[in-house]
């Protein structure tokens, strides 16, 4: 059995690994460079060519270390790196077309999660008659899922001709996405931790059952939680089991409360720092999917990718996530550098 101290130490070691690796690569490259220099004066021309190629590649390695590798080590390890994620999707303007687009986006995230090896399940959904979804909550279980996906929060806008539109007119519809942090034990129904106190949560079952008991054998499993201090309410009805719905509802409640806490942490930090860490305004339009131009644009970083199909059916979302992560790292880096000035 490993003690908590062992685990903490192992984690610390693991966190130092990138630093260690960068430093040994750096020293190794420097050493090789020193060894290469005399060879550039070698009487043998083949040797001189080899040495000069080696020289070019080594100087390149060293300069990337200075320009990227070392600075990126300044980005403190994320405090949310272990968290799983809940994705809440809500159809916005655009009626049934928005509901259809919601389904397209949902598939993108499910496929992406699968490719990373994360487990997904749709814990709530309300389907529309036209085969779309008005809203959905996707659970993504996998360490790092929250950190990887949190940039997806915001309004996603689609511009396309709906399959049902005979006149061929382009419609604009939107889907709002919120990525919530999910901890391992989020389904626990006991409270009294840093997120909430049990006495602050009102648990209600929905719909009247008349006499109830033996008189009624209708399935009635819907549950609603209200967190009184924040007014957050969560309703769950997708499972046949009330017990299960309650567990799910607590899971969502915890995720929302943790989200509030994280946003507060960021706001507090921002108040004490002069730089701005990316604001996460959920009503902000972050991305446009334009079918006529076969293009996806992320408005925050001004990145456009051609080939919508690769986004919707391939792994195009990865490119955005990578770019957004780099962008964020740079911001944090500037922040850290700015602080030490």
């Amino acid at each position, binding site marked *: 059995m490993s003690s908590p101290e062992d685990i903490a130490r192992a984690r610390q070691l693991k966190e130092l690994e990138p630093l260690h690796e960068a430093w040994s690569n750096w020293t190794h490259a420097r050493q090789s460079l020193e060894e290469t220099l005399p060879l550039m004066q070698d009487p043998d021309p083949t040797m001189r060519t080899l040495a000069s190629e080696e020289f070019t590649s080594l100087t390149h390695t060293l300069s990337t270390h200075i320009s990227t590798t070392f600075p990126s080590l300044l980005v403190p390890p994320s405090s949310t790196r272990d968290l799983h994620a809940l994705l809440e999707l809500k159809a916005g303007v655009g009626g049934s077309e928005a509901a259809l687009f919601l389904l397209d986006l949902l598939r993108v995230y499910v496929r992406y999660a699968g490719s990373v090896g994360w487990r997904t399940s749709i814990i709530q959904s309300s389907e529309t008659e036209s085969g779309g979804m008005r809203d959905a909550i996707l659970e993504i279980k996998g360490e790092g899922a929250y950190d990887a996906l949190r940039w997806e929060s915001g309004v996603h806008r689609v511009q396309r001709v709906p399959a049902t539109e005979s006149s061929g007119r382009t419609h604009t519809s939107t889907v709002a996405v919120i990525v919530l942090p999910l901890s391992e034990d989020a389904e626990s129904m006991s409270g009294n931790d840093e997120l909430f106190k049990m006495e602050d949560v009102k*648990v209600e079952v929905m719909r009247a059952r008349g006499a*109830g008991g*033996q008189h*009624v*054998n209708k399935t009635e499993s819907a549950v609603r939680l209200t967190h009184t201090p924040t007014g957050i309410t969560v309703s769950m009805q997708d499972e046949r*089991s009330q017990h299960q719905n309650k567990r799910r509802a607590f899971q969502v409640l915890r995720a929302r409360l943790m989200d509030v806490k994280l946003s507060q942490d960021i706001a507090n930090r921002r108040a004490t720092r002069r730089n701005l860490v990316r604001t996460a305004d959920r009503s902000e339009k972050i991305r446009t999917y334009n079918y006529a131009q076969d293009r996806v644009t992320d408005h925050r970083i001004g990145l456009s990718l051609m080939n919508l199909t690769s986004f919707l059916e391939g792994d195009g979302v990865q490119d955005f996530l990578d770019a957004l992560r780099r962008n964020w790292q740079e911001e944090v880096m500037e922040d850290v550098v700015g602080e030490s000035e």
Partner: protein
Amino acid sequence: MPSDGITAVKQLFTRLVYSLGRETATRELKWMKQALIASHSPTLAAMLQRRLSGEPLQYILGTTPFGPLDLLTRPPTLIPRPETEDWTLRLADMLTPTPVRPLTVLDLCTGTGCIPLLLCHLWPPGSTRAYGVDISQHAIRLAADNAARCNIPSFQPAPYSQNVFIPVLGDLRDPDVFKRLLPPFDIITANPPYIPKREYDKLPVSVKNYEDPAALLGDPPDSEEQDGLTFYRLISKILRQKGMLRDGSIVALEVGRAQADAVEGILQQSAGLRNTQVWKDPWNVKRVVLARA
């Protein structure tokens, strides 16, 4: 599925929407599809057809959730209700038996065995020995099947490290039935039939046409009293028998709407249990009378 099958499903679904409302019908359809994937049951159309004629969803799907358990349901044995689930969970939370201080449970009118099975599931291994008595062969067979499904041994002698649930075929009116079950009991639970005849006549089709009348009707037809309380009087007599309870034993009886006060009175007067209390269900109906010996 052939295309005419799909049209049939669509039509049936539309009718189900009409009878249950869109939201409920959509959810039920989803659960039927899930059950179809899980088993080799008939077609979706057949399931919808049965649902439309009023058959309870739980009989069509063959299972019902009960707390964290997923129990088998078979007609005509009464389908476990969410109200029962709620108070059983609450009872389980109230007590913490251990292998060192194990508890003996007697569940009267056990039906599917839901109450003792949930207690056996939630309490620590080796802490609980439960009996469930029912007059119906169907119920006893189903209770045994459910025990197997929940990995809870239903035979003696079971390994000491496990909880045990033993279904027993027997009639509450038979005074000897409890003798072979090793009283005294630490906990006696019951959800006996409690519906008065005049209310029974007005029950929804899904209850009246599908669930065993003997699981619902509170009084024999020839009884003078038609208040649905005959079983509580009978149970009080059983509780009064010497050696059934010990000091501190707990009795938990589910009751129908507006019966709690009367049942509390019966327990106090004819069973001599003065220390009583009433629990409400999540829908705010007085649902359980609890007594401590």
